[in-house]
């Protein structure tokens, strides 16, 4: 699962690289690529969504360690669990807001101007990533409780 996600996010990175690289070349040789920015937005959203999941999966999010490093192991475990719980609350709030918007705009058939990239699909990807991140935090919390 993780490997698949990394390849998916990585291919999106490659697509972003290629899109903007060709756009620059195209502009300078007089063959501009119309809609390259819209394409970039779509692939950057995909890589960004995957990256949120990956950073949470690997617990790579930045934290201030000044006090936690000086805590006893028991207190540090408590601080870790608190951090996961607070993170879950924030991500759920974010997800609720994002789902609210997606539901509101569902009937509007939003799409990008030049290429007609469907925004509903982009919102779906982003919300799935958020939901996945929430699931990872729930799993981590459950594992912490079991310990």
């Amino acid at each position, binding site marked *: 699962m993780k490997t698949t996600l*990394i*390849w998916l*996010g*990585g291919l999106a*990175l490659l697509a*972003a*690289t*290629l*899109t*903007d*690289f060709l*756009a*620059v070349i195209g502009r300078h040789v007089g063959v501009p690529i119309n809609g390259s*920015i819209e394409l*970039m*937005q779509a692939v*950057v*959203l995909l*890589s*960004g*969504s*995957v*990256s*949120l*999941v*990956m*950073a*949470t999966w*690997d617990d*790579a*999010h*930045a*934290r*201030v*360690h*000044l*006090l*936690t490093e000086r805590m006893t192991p028991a207190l*540090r475990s408590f*601080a*870790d669990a*608190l*951090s996961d719980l*607070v*993170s879950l*609350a*924030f*991500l759920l*709030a*974010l997800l*609720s*807001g*994002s*789902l*609210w*918007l997606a539901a509101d705009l569902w009937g509007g058939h939003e799409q990008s101007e030049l290429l007609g990239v469907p925004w509903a699909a*982009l*919102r779906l990807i*982003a919300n799935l990533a*958020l939901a996945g991140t929430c699931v990872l935090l729930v799993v981590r919390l459950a594992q912490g409780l079991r310990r």
Partner: protein
Amino acid sequence: MIMATTATALIGVAVLLALLLAGVRIGVALGLVGIGGLAVVLGPEAAAIKAGVVFMDTLTRYELGTLPLFLFMAHVFFSIDASRDLFDAAAKLLGHRRGGLAYASIAGCAGFGTINGSSLATTATVGLVAYPEMRRRGYADTISTGTIAAGGTLGQMIPPSGALIVFGIIAETSIGDLFTAAIIPGITQALFYALVVFVLVRLNPAIAPAGERAPWSERWRALGKVWDIALLVAVVIGGITMGWISPSEAAAMGAACALAIAARRRKLTRQALFRAFEETLRTSGLIYLILIGALIFATFIGVTGLADAAGALVAGMGLGTFATLALLAVILLLLGSLLDGLALMLLTTPIMLPIAQEVGMSAVWFGIFITRAMEIGFVHPPLGMNLYVMQGVAKDVSIGRIFRGVMPFLASDFVHLALLILFPAIVMWLPDLLGN
């Protein structure tokens, strides 16, 4: 908006500090205080919707494509051991002088800073290459570790810089202008470090003995290994500075050419590519979460009017430009003892940027100023992340010795920061000259 007062904002800032010190993820702490504050001020529905808007805007923001692509470029270069090649080239050119390897480390850090925007990564990668060589040549542990820990901070200032990209997004300032403005401060910072090495070696020549002079054939061979990287950097940074390409396009060109260079050196394997993807995604995710949180927090601070109130307060004190900026610097350095770099930037920018603008400084100047203050935090106890990274590399040296080694460089950092305040043209001259 009954609760939209500066008191509400100050309570939010206090809660934020408490959450950060309790070890809550930085992006989460910023975002949660932002959403909570907006819920108090505007109502829960508006807060949730605003958070949803910020989330989607951040993920689809074209300019933010700059960040993962520059990270991707850096990770491709990691996989081909570019840091070793850059240090080797500098060492072959300078290593025969007294303190030559220390100069080479600074040059290696500056060179590596042009392909990677992180202080920690620069310290770790250059440290792994340069530290053993310096010790082998009889350099004292203090100058070896101090030079690399301080030099590592160049990664944050010299474009492309992750910190400047993040600042550009949250302050809605041109990333290209920020990169252009960072060039002279980055170069002068490196020159300051070289000056420190020069003085230290003059005072005590035994700490950094001269080595053997490498013949020109070896020097050319070492330079031959980095010419393509140097050319790529020149095109990427030059293209942005001259306004030929946007930072996002430069990042894409950088990533594409890094892949081509790796392929030419026959190091673009499936495993190397996978590792570069994994590292890039992990670091991007970390920064995305922080940015989403910071943008929500900034909205909350904006709604409460705290920044305007702080600006009016400072203006009312009639301190003048220099004293005001010096005061901001002191606050940043004090907060930098508690918070790590990004948290410091994201917490203080919404409040301090309007104050700096109130006394006539531009957002671009402030971006360089706060990044410089952040860099000092990387080598400043008790946090001083670079010092701990350096200890991870130099396991035989105590943290106290490393701190002793970095002290002269830290002193030069304070002087450099003061010069940026006294002479803003150090920052603004190049962007003004190029009409950005």
